[in-house]
């Protein structure tokens, strides 16, 4: 057994033993509790060491470890070596485990917590699940042979945003287990007065980190993938969106219960379901059940039965407990008065949950329809059609909420407060209609988004004079308003045009004059950059989208260029590059040592250079040629790549005077090659196919996400001081 696996086994032992100790100590045995805590520290140490060990294996390029081989290579910079850790499934489970154990340290520091024993028991049960998966499919397993070089990291993942995205998501995942554990502890102990206070900051924290993870993921997709969007309703995205929605509903439920002592059952249910949805999402995205329905291909690691087992176990345990206690769960009646903050928050919880349910049904469509007959997916319009009305209703609720007190108010009182902001919103909405908003539901969505923004800003501004800490909710809602406006403008009012740009010939798009200037290859490897001159009035810059052959995937990769302006982004996405119409010479044969005059070049075939290339049966054959032209002599090395399935890729070499030479055929048995020269023709020059699109007001969207994060941060900070 390798060191890493050994540490994981010790960690599992520690988790199981300390879980049992915590459980036994739950009847008030102080001494046992302190032993349980000590054992927990030791367990954490094992988890820490296992994590450090995997980092160590990456940093020392231990390619015998299959996981290190599969996701890194020795030329990766330090920064990306770190992120290779969570580039694959096994590593993300370890990351999740480590963060979970780390957060546990904060939980056990709490003194005089009557729920602590049970809470820690259930919390550690979650980590048993992670450890079983980790031991079943370990990131430490070795391969039989020792490869000299790793496969490398997918170039799509070589991005600072992608480095931070998985840790953020897994911090969120790990933190959601805390309210879950508290809810179960409260149910077992039949004691419901403290669990909300203790878990509220953790719910805020997980809403904050999971939300940040979702936003960062969206920003990454926009910046790197080049299809121009930031959200695609893909199962991987939905798997984190669904629990995020219920977590946000839970934040509101907690605040209601704290203020009004109502919604006890709902909150217990939401705390439980948020965690179960994380498990369900993990199952959906890791088991391979959706393999044919998602952009991502999820390899089935053979963990299915474990994932299903734990999903069923946790569901039965938690919902069973809730049902068992439910007849005795009494709380104050909620929503007595319609014109009050309380009623609005209640509706908000209902609609947030409804949205979560609808997204979940859509994501599970292949499973649901598979049970009834033919497995079938739902397309993106389903998500938009069902969520747009909900978003409008949420906008309506968030518009009213800053003007409603917790106690019932009267219509007259409300109108008085609302008149001025409403006037402002109407003026802005009229401007929007003049500017081009025609669709009625778009108009409603915009109207309420602006209302949310203005209404919450007014109250937030007033609150600033008091304590900023208490204004987190308003700040978050300002962010929601901003984000809603940005979502509408970038999705419904984005313009797009496809151009074929002949090198040197300008074309017009959105008032800009675009000229394709050619290619640039600054550092050689994987760095091919296209140069497009963009002109408008005094403005003049070079847009540099990239289109390159990736060594990692042996495929074309692209990266858009984004020009950020104050009111919109210009998004340049390269679609295809045509190397121009070469006029090919008749192919000619050359034996080793033979020399020929072709098209003014004196070409001599010196030798072959054959090397296995990459993994599998790939092979690269290079012909080393000596070229004399205008009195100068140099070497050219055209090549052919033979892929695994007899696929052939030619890699031309550039000749003096910017013509190219292709290796057409390799006759290894005769020691000869067939070559052809491609001459730049008069017509048919290099052409770039480019999609240019505008993303109006996208800065509002990004600003909105930052404001939401700030608001959630304030809220979490405030509640953590109340523990």
């Amino acid at each position, binding site marked *: 057994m390798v060191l890493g696996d050994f540490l994981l086994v010790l960690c599992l032992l520690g988790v199981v033993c300390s879980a049992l100790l915590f459980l036994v100590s739950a009847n008030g045995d102080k001494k046992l509790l302190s032993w349980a805590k000590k054992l927990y520290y030791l367990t954490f140490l094992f988890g820490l060491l296992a994590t450090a060990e995997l980092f160590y294996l990456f940093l020392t390029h231990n390619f015998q470890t299959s996981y290190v081989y599969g*996701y890194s290579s020795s030329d990766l910079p330090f920064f990306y070596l770190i992120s290779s850790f969570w580039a694959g*499934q096994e590593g993300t489970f370890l990351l999740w485990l480590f963060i979970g154990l780390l957060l546990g340290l904060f939980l056990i520091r709490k003194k005089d917590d009557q729920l602590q024993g049970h809470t820690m028991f259930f919390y550690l049960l979650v980590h048993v699940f992670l450890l079983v998966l980790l031991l079943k499919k370990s990131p430490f397993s070795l391969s039989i042979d020792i490869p000299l070089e790793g496969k490398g990291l*997918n170039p799509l*993942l070589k991005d600072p945003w992608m480095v931070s995205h998985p840790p953020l998501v897994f911090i969120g995942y790990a933190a959601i287990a805390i309210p879950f554990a508290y809810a179960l502890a409260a149910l077992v102990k039949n004691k419901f007065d403290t669990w909300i206070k203790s878990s509220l900051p953790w719910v805020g924290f997980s809403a904050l980190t999971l939300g940040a993870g979702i936003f960062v993921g969206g920003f990454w997709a926009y910046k790197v993938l080049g299809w121009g969007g930031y959200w695609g309703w893909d199962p991987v995205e939905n798997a984190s969106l669904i629990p995020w929605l219920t977590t946000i509903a839970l934040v509101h439920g907690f605040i209601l219960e704290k203020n009004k002592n109502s919604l006890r059952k709902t909150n217990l249910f939401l705390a439980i379901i948020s965690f179960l949805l994380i498990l369900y999402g993990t199952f959906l995205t890791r088991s391979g059940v959706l393999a044919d329905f998602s952009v991502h291909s999820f390899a089935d690691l053979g963990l299915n039965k474990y994932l299903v087992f734990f999903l069923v176990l946790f569901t039965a345990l938690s919902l069973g407990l809730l049902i068992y206690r439910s007849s005795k769960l009494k709380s104050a009646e909620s929503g007595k008065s319609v014109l009050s903050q309380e009623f609005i928050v209640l509706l908000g919880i209902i609609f947030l949950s409804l949205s979560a349910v609808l997204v979940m*049904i859509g994501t599970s469509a292949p499973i649901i329809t598979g049970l009834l007959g033919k497995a079938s997916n739902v*397309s993106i*319009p389903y998500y938009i059609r069902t969520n747009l009305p909900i978003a409008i209703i949420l906008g309506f609720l968030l518009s009213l909420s800053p003007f409603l007190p917790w106690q019932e108010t009267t219509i007259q009182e409300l109108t008085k407060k609302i008149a001025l902001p409403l006037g402002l919103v109407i003026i802005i909405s009229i401007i929007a209609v003049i500017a081009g908003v025609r669709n009625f539901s778009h108009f409603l969505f915009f109207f309420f988004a602006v209302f949310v923004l203005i209404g919450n800003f007014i109250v937030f501004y007033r609150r600033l004079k008091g304590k900023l800490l208490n204004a987190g909710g308003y700040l978050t809602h300002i962010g929601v308003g901003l984000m809603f406006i940005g979502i509408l403008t970038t999705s419904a009012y984005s313009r797009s045009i496809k151009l074929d740009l002949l090198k040197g010939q300008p074309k017009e798009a959105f008032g800009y004059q675009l000229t394709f200037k050619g290619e640039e290859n600054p550092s050689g490897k994987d760095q091919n950059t296209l140069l497009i001159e963009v002109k408008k009035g005094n403005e003049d810059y070079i847009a540099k989208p990239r289109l390159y052959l990736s060594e990692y995937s042996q495929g074309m990769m692209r990266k858009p260029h984004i020009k950020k302006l104050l009111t919109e982004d210009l998004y340049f996405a390269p679609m295809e590059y045509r190397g121009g119409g070469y006029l090919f010479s008749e192919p000619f044969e050359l034996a080793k040592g033979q020399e020929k005059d072709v098209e003014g070049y004196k070409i001599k075939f010196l030798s072959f250079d054959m090397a296995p290339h990459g993994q599998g049966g790939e092979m690269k054959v290079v012909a080393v040629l000596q070229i004399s032209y205008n009195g100068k002599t140099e070497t050219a090395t055209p090549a052919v790549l033979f892929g695994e399935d007899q696929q052939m890729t030619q890699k031309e070499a550039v000749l003096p005077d910017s013509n190219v030479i292709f290796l057409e055929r390799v006759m290894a048995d005769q020691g000869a090659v067939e070559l052809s020269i491609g001459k730049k023709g008069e017509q048919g020059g290099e052409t770039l196919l480019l999609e240019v699109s505008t993303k109006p007001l996208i800065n509002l969207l990004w600003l909105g996400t930052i404001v939401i994060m700030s608001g959630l941060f304030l809220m979490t900070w405030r509640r953590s001081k109340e523990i």
Partner: protein
Amino acid sequence: MNWKYIVGIGIILIFIVFGALSFRKNMTPYVGFKEAMSSNSSVQIIGEVIPEDTRYDLESHQFFFSLKDPKGEKMKVAFNGVKPANFEQATSVVAIGKYQDGLFSADQILVKCPSKYQGGK
């Protein structure tokens, strides 16, 4: 039971019906090439890309490619959009759309590529 519960349950029911209708409307079952040709509604097909048949049409700004199913049957696909970043990396491609006038007109294509969720072999 007071009126608020009735209104609340009413709203939720409306949404469930609305959601179910949208669900049915936007359902795109996986079908074989033969079935896709005879279907009138949106479906999805999956197949391997035939590299030689991939081309971008400058006139119509459409992206054309062909898919091959395990039986070796071919289907021509037209896509009105940007070729996805990792198209060439694709092990297989999913096209969602309708069969019209001799080719499969795709509204959306999914590229199945080795991503971070694929286990190393």
